[in-house]
């Protein structure tokens, strides 16, 4: 289990002459191992450096703002994301109209009349003033509502994919790097074969096979994007496991799994967090791409990608249908990219951009980007 390095042998020799002072611990006796303090200073440092970086901090603020709007946005309007008013299609942003409707006993609504001028109220009916803040789409649906509904889908896909990628990539890479030997050999050979295939083709194939929908997108993205992370984690673990504190932890009675998950992985966390942060915009982008090609979420569900696709139909006459989703996709991806860069700087102040030295390392940094 323990790698038998020359240093271990030397240490063993040095120990022999004072043997009576040293008694072997019982296996998995964690009493001494648990007498450690959390490394709070390092984390505070990272947070502090991130706060100092104004650009990175505003990116974080934008992401939080977008997330809040994605949660509350659809409730800010009286429209639903799928409710159509065909007579009011392709209206410009800020279009105001009055709606007269009747509420049925079972909660459904029957629209009686709508007009740009104020309508008179009658017994048994209700009149409301409504505004298409971002205009309406080709089926007379409110673009503002659909946009924030799409934000929910897109952000959800981004974050859940990042989570899946994190779990698979860290476990796989961690096991391969820590145990080494033939386990590493086989696991990394599999990764190498899979990584040879262009990611996008892979995702497309999975999407064609799986039942289209949110679940399929999450599976397809999650299954693909963990590969570079597994390589990254493995490389980190390989270099970290030779450090003295690992020996110290082992001497103090920690088992393999404890060393891996409590000592090695937390120390490799910086680059992992950076990769996962950058996987979010990648997933959002890929989802938009898939929706645009026709492999994404089905109608009437809106995602930013499907909104762009719908907006593209009317590019000549109703540019706002394309502008709003395009703007918010770009803003989100930009914010996540900047946050990822700032996090990289915060975790490791020495390196700004990845310095590439060999063909191998291209899998480690973000060069696997889609266009």
């Amino acid at each position: 289990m323990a790698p038998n390095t020359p240093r271990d042998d030397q240490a063993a020799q040095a120990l022999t002459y004072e043997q009576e002072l040293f008694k072997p611990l019982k296996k998995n006796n964690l009493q001494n191992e648990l007498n450690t303090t959390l490394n709070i200073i390092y984390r505070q440092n990272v947070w502090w450096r991130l706060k100092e970086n104004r650009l990175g901090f505003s990116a974080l603020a934008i992401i939080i703002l977008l997330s809040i709007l994605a949660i509350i946005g659809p409730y800010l309007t009286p429209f639903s994301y799928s409710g159509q008013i065909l007579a009011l299609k392709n209206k410009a942003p800020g279009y105001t109209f009055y709606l007269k409707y009747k509420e049925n006993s079972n909660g459904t609504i029957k629209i009686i009349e709508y007009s740009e001028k104020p309508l008179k109220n009658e017994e048994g009916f209700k009149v409301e003033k409504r505004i298409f803040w971002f205009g309406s789409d080709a089926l007379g649906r409110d673009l503002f509502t659909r946009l924030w509904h799409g934000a929910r889908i897109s952000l959800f896909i981004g974050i859940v994919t990042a989570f899946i990628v994190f779990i698979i990539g860290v476990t796989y890479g961690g096991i391969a790097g820590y145990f080494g030997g033939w386990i590493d050999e086989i696991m990394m050979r599999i990764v190498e074969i899979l990584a040879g295939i262009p990611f996008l083709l892979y995702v497309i194939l999975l999407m064609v096979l799986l039942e289209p929908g949110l679940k399929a997108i999450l599976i397809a993205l999650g299954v693909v994007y963990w590969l570079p992370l597994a390589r990254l984690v493995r490389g980190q673990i390989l270099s970290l496991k030779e450090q003295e504190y690992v020996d110290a932890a082992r001497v103090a009675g920690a088992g393999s799994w404890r060393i891996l998950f409590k000592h090695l992985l937390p120390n490799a966390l910086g680059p992992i967090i950076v990769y996962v942060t950058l996987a979010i915009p990648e997933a959002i982008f890929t989802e938009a791409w898939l929706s645009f090609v026709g492999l994404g979420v089905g109608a009437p569900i809106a995602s930013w990608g499907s909104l762009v696709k719908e907006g593209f139909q009317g590019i000549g006459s109703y540019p706002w249908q394309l502008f709003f989703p395009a703007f918010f996709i770009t803003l989100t991806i930009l914010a996540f990219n900047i946050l990822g860069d700032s996090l990289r700087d915060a975790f490791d102040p020495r390196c700004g951009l990845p310095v590439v030295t060999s063909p191998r390392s291209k899998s480690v940094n973000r060069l696997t980007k889609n266009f």
Partner: protein
Amino acid sequence: MARYILRRVGTMLLALFFIVSATFFMLKAIPGGPFASEKKLPPSIEENITKKYHLDDPWYIQYRDYLIRTAEFDLGPSYRYEGRTVNDIIADGFPVSAQLGFVTVLISIVTGISLGTIAALNRNKFHDYFAMILATLGFSVPSFIVAFILMYIFAYKLRLLPPALWGTWKHLVLPAVSLSFVPTAVIARLIRSNMVEVLQQDYIKTAKAKGLKKTIVIYRHALRNAITPVVIYLGPLVTGIFTGSFVIEHIFAIPGLGRHFVMSIQNRDYTVILGITVFYSLFLMTMNLAVDIMLTVIDPRVQLVDEKR
């Protein structure tokens, strides 16, 4: 070196085998036969068709035949377009895609290297910030959104360039420029960070001290040493541009392979989807290997060896 190449080719063949097998079993797993349609075929015709395409063989015979046919680059017929094979479609579409891809690679390398060099030479000055903001922005805008913006401005508002189709150089401009945004940004960032490092090296000081002209110092001494990552990036660059052109070709209605691919996805024309996937995988993996070998020629410092463990 020879060992490394041999191993890479071996991995490539394994990956291809994996793709071909996966595509075969995906074809089998997808519900609905290839000739299923609303109109019911007379049983005798259906029987003939089944016989013609050997669909009555057990799966392992079909699998074996499929492997052999794929190894012979026969990717089968299209289910949607009668009388057209996947090979025909690739032969029609790929030259167009390759042309677009080549121009895009050229644009992104030239612009990317220029932007990165300018930024590095004016480090922490206005030029630098401007170039890097441009690069970060270019990095974050999906290519299809760039395509829409360019199309809206140049085709619909200014009416300078055609919004779609293929033929003259004018048709090439908008798609190539929109595709080159992301790779340009990546190259600019790579060149900048490497250039900044190279410019601090002693040999640059020596070159300056010898009294060489500034341009010679930059081009012959600095840039040549900073360019390695761009060559490394060429592999993913080509992959990105070719897969990225799926959507761009679709938007600009360019009759390239990418458009056929997207169309076949929308038509659920499975043999075409899978055939083009196999073709693209082979093409892109070969390109990646070629780039890695080219790298050793350009930069003697790089040695192709197996991963250290």
